[in-house]
């Protein structure tokens, strides 16, 4: 048996702070690592193709990332609570078409965006209610709503299509215009991101999302309103998927019944690559946004380097596995380091809950 070297008198402040610094460093490192990979990739591409980082090039990078950043931010809230929302792609598609239809009928652009967001909120509420009340795994529930929303979308849209010609010019300009290289939609995504990050860090209910994902049972015992928090996470996730739908419409101007198909998997990849633990409780939205930026940039980098874009998916997959592997290794290292600093004897005994 290992024996502690500490005696009866309590240790004051000595070794623990280094444990804290280690952990903080690791978490910051995790996000910095994604940023570093991203920057290296951009630098290499720029070296190979000096046109890559033109004003239009940067604009394209940001525009491509915008939609994914929005949806990934929402998804992060859900994943932090140890749940997942697979219906975001379907929600994005149907919201985009709804907004498009409204604009095609001569509606106001602001109302169109609100409409998309409201639709997203509706589907988010539905998911949240099913998951929090149903006691059914979120993976299965949202797989169900993925198909339901997509099905409703297909029935409603049919073979119709909305093209940029159907939309008011101002709306399309909004989708690509902006302050120098920063497009309007990207600014919106940035604001959403910063607000969400601030909320998660500085508000009780935000911290409770982490608590919930970290140890659901302890959360219940701590008196956290578990159902309400899960409902909130899904609602925000839905709302952001709806907003992303409106941005999609503005950016591409082209929506049909297949829009957003399979997008949920890209979103989940971005979240995981960005360092949010799929088992909940750890990570941050900035990481998820960086993950989204990295994944979408691969799309632009390959053509710029003259590599066929058929490689995009494979590279995304490698990034995903790499991220998970890194997380696993880092987690083991951190656990070992923390354990060395405090626990001399955490034995299997504790598992026994015998007695009366």
């Amino acid at each position, binding site marked *: 048996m290992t024996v502690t070297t*500490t005696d009866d008198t*309590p*240790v004051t402040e000595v070794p623990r702070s280094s*444990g804290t610094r280690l952990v903080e460093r690791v978490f910051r490192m995790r996000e910095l690592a994604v940023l570093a990979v991203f920057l290296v990739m951009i630098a290499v591409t720029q070296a190979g193709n000096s046109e890559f980082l033109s004003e239009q090039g940067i604009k394209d990078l940001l525009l491509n990332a915008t939609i994914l950043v929005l949806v990934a931010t929402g998804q992060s809230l859900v994943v932090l609570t140890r749940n997942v929302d697979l219906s975001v792609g379907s929600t994005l598609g149907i919201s985009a078409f709804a907004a498009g239809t409204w604009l095609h009928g001569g509606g106001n652009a602001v109302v169109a965006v609100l409409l998309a967001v409201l639709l997203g909120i509706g589907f988010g509420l539905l998911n949240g209610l099913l998951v929090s009340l149903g006691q059914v795994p979120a993976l299965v529930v949202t797989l169900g709503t993925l198909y339901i929303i997509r099905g409703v979308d297909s029935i409603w849209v049919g073979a119709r299509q909305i093209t940029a010609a159907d939309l008011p010019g101002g709306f399309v300009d909004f989708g690509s215009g902006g302050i120098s290289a920063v497009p309007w939609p990207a600014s919106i995504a940035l604001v959403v991101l910063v607000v969400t990050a601030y909320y998660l860090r*500085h508000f*009780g209910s935000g911290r409770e999302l982490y608590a919930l*994902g970290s140890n659901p049972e302890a959360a219940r015992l701590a008196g956290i309103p578990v159902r309400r928090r899960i409902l909130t996470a899904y609602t925000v996730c839905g709302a952001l998927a709806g907003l992303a739908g409106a941005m999609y419409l503005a950016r591409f101007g082209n929506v049909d019944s297949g829009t957003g198909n399979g997008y949920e998997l890209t979103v989940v990849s971005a979240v995981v690559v960005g360092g949010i633990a799929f088992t909940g409780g750890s990570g941050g939205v900035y990481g998820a946004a960086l993950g989204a930026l990295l994944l979408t940039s691969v799309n632009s980098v390959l053509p710029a380097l003259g590599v066929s874009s058929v490689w995009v998916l494979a590279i995304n997959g490698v990034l995903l596995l790499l991220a998970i592997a890194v997380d696993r290794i880092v987690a083991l290292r951190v656990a070992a380091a923390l354990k060395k600093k405090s626990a001399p*004897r955490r*034995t299997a005994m504790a598992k026994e809950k015998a007695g*009366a």
Partner: protein
Amino acid sequence: MTHPPDTGPAPVLALKGVSKSFGAVRALRDVSLELLPGEVHALAGENGAGKSTLIKTLAGVHRPDAGQVLLDGEPVVFHGPGDARDAGIAVIYQEPTLFPDLSIAENIFMGRQPRRALGRIDHKATRAATAALMRRLGVGLDPDRPARGLSIADQQIVEIAKALSFDARVLIMDEPTAALTGSEVARLFGVVRTLREQGTAVLFISHRLEEIFRICQKVTTLRDGTRIASETLDKMTEDDLVRRMVGRELAELYPERRAQTGDVALGVRRLTREGVFTDVSFEVRRGEIVGLAGLVGAGRTEVARAVFGIDRWDAGEVEVAGRRLPKGAPSAAMAAGLALVPEDRRAQGLVMDLSIERNIGLTGLRTTARAGLMDRGAERSRSLDWAVRLQVKYARIADAVSTLSGGNQQKVVLAKWLATGPKVLIVDEPTRGIDVGTKAEVHRLLAELAADGVAVLMISSDLPEILGMADRVLVMHEGRISAEIPRADATEESVLAAATGRAAA
């Protein structure tokens, strides 16, 4: 049954005539208890005496069937753990419930963080308050450190800090020292003493008698759900306390048997698993029943798991009928003739949703298969045969085992392993939570097996069972074999003495 004179302080929290039953089991019968401010009160009793039920009643997890919970003399009804907490009752369970990803400060103040304008969390104040709590407890835990990787002792400190943070007036600690080292226990006791001086009422549960005498002023003893006594400790000896805890007559009759022991069937030599058990050596002969006694957490189950190959061991060796077993290989253990009936039958012994037939059949998938395919007919007849031999009470052999009573489930687990024709049978708490009738049947069955030449190692926390069944008693204490007592010398006192680490009998 003495009542304190009216001059003393009034109890903060009390139970009056509380009874609680779970199905047919009466866990508490007409139990009263008074917790006074500035006093550490011990709750003593054997496993199954009703201690946990009593704690959970105070903590608002269970509601009493009869009797009252009194807070400051007024009857209260707790609708859940939250109500009890709001009333100033903090419970520290054996295994603390923390958020591993969050910092110590967040763990303590989750849901109750100090706020700034607009409802934002005041991180600085949270951290400062945590640091102040840590100073008050005299420990150097960094408020920003995540809870992941904290030792059990430190986790308990965090839980105590949580209790302090909402000014708990009653602190209930359920075997807080079970997983602690000596110095960690000393630190914990320092904290408890400070709290006592500050007027907190403490209810302390421990199996370690010397700890009760070290830290407590009063003790309430429970036996079979009934309160035996509530008294001050200063005039008592450990032997008095043991007598109150175990002083019952053997309620059940154990089968008459004369051991015909043969060769060594199971030999365990110097087996060690770091941090779990150390230098464990014993042997079990054919036809012998060896009892393995000890307190919860002494490492008995862990030894059994290692012997069977579920966990690896770091040093030592295991032999079955003279053949050495490789470490960490249950299939090799099974092939050598070893069978393990685990402690937790629902989680480890059975596939609850599968039929009786399939569950018994699981250990015979290799032997009853033909050309690699399952032979359902052979499986059914093998299962039926054993179900009948063990008198399992069921409607149809194809029913899910989840439909059976606890006792019959246990018989199915036994059948599953006996069907392998084991040379050595390890049973871990074979009769926990099953009714008296079935219990006697299990005992009879174990005696028959031994008579047929099977070597039986029986882990049990039920002292009468150990004394009634075993030819020899091995006692474990904190990961080591602390005594080996032949049947003739085995008494409740001698076993309990060895199990609590007092001078071995």
